[in-house]
């Protein structure tokens, strides 16, 4: 069951409710692919997860392919007044008479890309920190985990908002980076959301490093790096994937919230969040400008949570029996 939350305060909950460690006897011999087939079979029987997966495929296709057939998102149909849903404009038009459906689809391109980027990047950061802490233990572990604690304790939203307001930073040979642009937001969010993954990987590594096959590898002279990358990490791929999925949900919620407040992606570039910013105080004037972008966010996050839940059950079936 999903216990993780998507909003920024979810980070603390995530700390307390992490998806657990790989059970000791769930370790499989890497390489034959059987565990993936089994996981997929279990996933297929998870109805909500399959529904979520279907919706996500639909959403991605709509945003990245369907948008090509929609109107230009910033085209102002100056001759038409702002109007509600109609056959010409399924989601209605906004105060500049721009097509809302097209803006939702193009906003989805930004929001979904940012979320995926954050999931990948924060997973990499979290895995490296978690594996180092769990494998070497001792002072390195203490230091890294204290650092993670501090990081999880910071109120994410205000920190992100201040960081974005720094604006463009000069990275020397790498050129300028606009912290308020999609790339900047992706990097900032990744810097904040790696904590829960680090914790999960650390826990799994702590358990795995005591296993016989690690001893065996060491006995034949494998280096620490090899043990970590070839023996430890492949065995905690399940929890890592589950966690990365949940980070996608979290990233969508944080990015849209930031953009909604005006501290994220800046108009006229549409993001799922900034489409709703004008609704503050005027929500009753044009309901479709609030409801459609909002539903896009809600349904997508719901679908991601369903998929995450299905993955969790697929990789750790005993958890399902227990709960």
């Amino acid at each position: 069951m999903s216990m993780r939350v998507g909003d920024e305060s979810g980070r603390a909950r995530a700390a307390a409710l992490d998806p657990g460690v790989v059970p000791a006897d769930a370790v499989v011999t890497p390489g034959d692919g059987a565990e993936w087939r089994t996981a997929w079979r279990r996933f297929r029987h998870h109805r909500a997860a399959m529904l979520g997966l279907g919706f996500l495929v639909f959403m991605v296709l709509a945003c990245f392919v369907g948008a090509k057939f929609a109107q230009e998102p910033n085209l102002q149909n100056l001759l038409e007044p702002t109007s509600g849903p109609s056959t010409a404009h399924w989601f209605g038009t906004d105060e500049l008479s721009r097509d809302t459906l097209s803006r939702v689809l193009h906003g989805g391109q930004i929001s979904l890309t940012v979320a995926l980027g954050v999931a990948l990047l924060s997973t990499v950061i979290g895995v490296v920190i978690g594996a180092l802490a769990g494998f070497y233990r001792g002072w390195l572990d203490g230091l890294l985990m204290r650092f993670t604690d501090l990081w999880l304790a910071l109120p994410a939203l205000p920190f992100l908002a201040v960081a974005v307001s720094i604006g463009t930073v000069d990275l020397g040979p790498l050129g300028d980076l606009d912290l308020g642009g999609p790339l900047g937001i992706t990097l900032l969010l990744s810097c904040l959301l790696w904590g829960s993954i680090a914790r999960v990987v650390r826990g799994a590594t702590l358990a795995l490093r005591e296993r016989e096959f690690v001893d065996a590898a060491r006995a034949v002279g494998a280096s620490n790096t090899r043990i970590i990358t070839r023996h430890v990490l492949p065995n905690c791929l399940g929890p890592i994937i589950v966690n990365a999925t949940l980070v996608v949900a979290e990233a969508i919620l944080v990015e849209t919230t930031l953009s909604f407040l005006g501290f994220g992606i800046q108009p006229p570039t549409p993001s799922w969040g900034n489409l709703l910013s004008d609704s503050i105080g005027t929500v009753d004037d044009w309901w479709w400008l609030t409801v459609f972008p909002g539903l896009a966010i809600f349904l997508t996050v719901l679908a991601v949570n369903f998929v995450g839940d299905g993955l969790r059950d697929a990789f750790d079936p005993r958890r399902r029996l227990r709960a």
Partner: protein
Amino acid sequence: MITFIVRRLVTAVVVVLLATIVVFALVSARGDPLRELRHRPGVSQTTLHNLEREYHLDESRPRQYVDWLGDFVQGDWGTSFRTERPVGDMVGEATWNTFLLVGTALVLSVTLALIIGVVSAVRQHSAFDYAATSFSYFGFSMPDFFFALLLQLFVIVVLQEQLDIHVIYVQGKYTVGQEGDVANLIGHMVLPVLVLMLTSVAAWSRYQRDSMLEVLHTDYVRTARAKGVPRRQVIRRHALRNALIPFVTVVAIDAGVLLGGVVVVERVFSWPGLGLLFFDALERSDYPVILAWMAVATVFVVLFNLLADILYAVLDPRIRVSGPSRRRVRTA
């Protein structure tokens, strides 16, 4: 126990110090704090000079940090560039207003989450349990701001326009002219409190359900049942008491983090608390307010984390002996 608390306290102070460095570095990276003032008509060179001196802007960065920290600890938080009022007063008022919202939401959320969690666990796989699960999914996936806007839409379109009921309000703390009226205040608090409760109840009720289920499957609960202790008594005395320990900790951690959530809620409902203060300060580049706000928020969060640590140690003596941080104790 005393050693434990002292050790945690020292760690908390170190964490706060480190966090203020992060805060200061972030806020400084935004560039010259006086940038906007320099372009504001009617601001004289002397004023700018005095401000530079007051906020130690003529010093090096590390020196600025140390001076600022000294001022901050002594309660000298400066004057807002926007309202020209002492920052301490502004933060004080806003804290009280936010506390009103968060405190109410906290009490209601804890009560509701406990009831939902315990009933779901005791009647696992019942219709109630499934309804609670569906609600949790809803709460996890619903963005705060969208939920807030939907509630406003509902109140305006259905309650006010269709049914002509005007007891729930969508903006501010009081209707103009009715300041101090308790009924009016409550009418303004309903929606923001509901939004704050949504995610907390969704998360905490799940959490309580899972920790309750775990306790219900332990040997000592089975033993108690086997001895013939009545079911109700087992649930209340043996199960609930132990399942409450992790719950209390999670609530304490989250209570601090709720501070981030109030930014959204107070912005949508124009509630004059810490969240709105932060939003306005950042929009107008109000340097003294941004700095003080971030520092206060960090102190709050670390305090609640400390509280969680101590509560956990008080409630569960095993922690004091073996000494791992509460987060390393796996709950599943």
